[in-house]
């Protein structure tokens, strides 16, 4: 599960320069990364087969994450 960052000014929400962004996008996707992500996708689609179930899961997961960390109220 990939989470949004805890606040808008955080590392993940800053705007990158063109060179930094291009370097990130051009970085090859390793086989291990691909397998890990696709395994997660397969699990998610199998466990929550309908789009409505997926949306509902994310609302629950976000609420749980926010309760756990207690800092989610300010980020988008």
């Amino acid at each position, binding site marked *: *599960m*990939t*989470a*949004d*960052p805890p606040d808008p000014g955080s*590392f*993940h*929400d*800053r*705007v*990158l320069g*063109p060179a930094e*962004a291009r370097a*990130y*996008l051009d970085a090859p*996707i390793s086989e291990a*990364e*691909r397998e890990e*992500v*696709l395994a*997660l*996708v397969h*699990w*998610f*689609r199998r466990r929550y087969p*309908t*789009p*409505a179930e*997926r*949306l*509902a*899961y*994310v*609302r629950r*997961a*976000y609420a749980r*994450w926010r309760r756990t960390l207690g800092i*989610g109220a300010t*980020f*988008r």
Partner: protein
Amino acid sequence: MPGMRGAEFDELTFFRAIHESGVRALLIGRRALVLLGLPVLTADYDFWIAIDQIAIFNAAAAQCGLQPTLDPETARRRGRYVVENDEHVDVLVARSVTTVEGVQVAFEDVWVQRQTVTLAPGIEVQLPAVDDLILTKRFADRPKDLEDIRLLRMLKSQGQK
């Protein structure tokens, strides 16, 4: 119903209202990724709507108690606004948006290429095609947008349109 609080927010009711309004609204952002099968967390909703349909979108959102932060004319001039209560919905309202690398992305083109996801009988959500969703992620180039692009590329490699 006016005054509905976020705790009472019914996601299906929200999407049904948008669908039944007939507004040309594309779900973008991370919730679009979720519908495609990527388990990512997000707090808000992001839409890109036709520039002349702000009032229709707002009326649909009002059925769930969501209120616009700007009047339609100001929203159109600024290119984006929010409808919100305890929920937060970012609305992009522009004929086209340019990516950080200078690619102009037109709403009409994205709309034509869109894909439709059925949430429930009578509730359809419009999403950009994966390639266009990737372009929308390049409107800002935040690290999380680039992470999402990598995820979308992997999904596309599995045949997702």
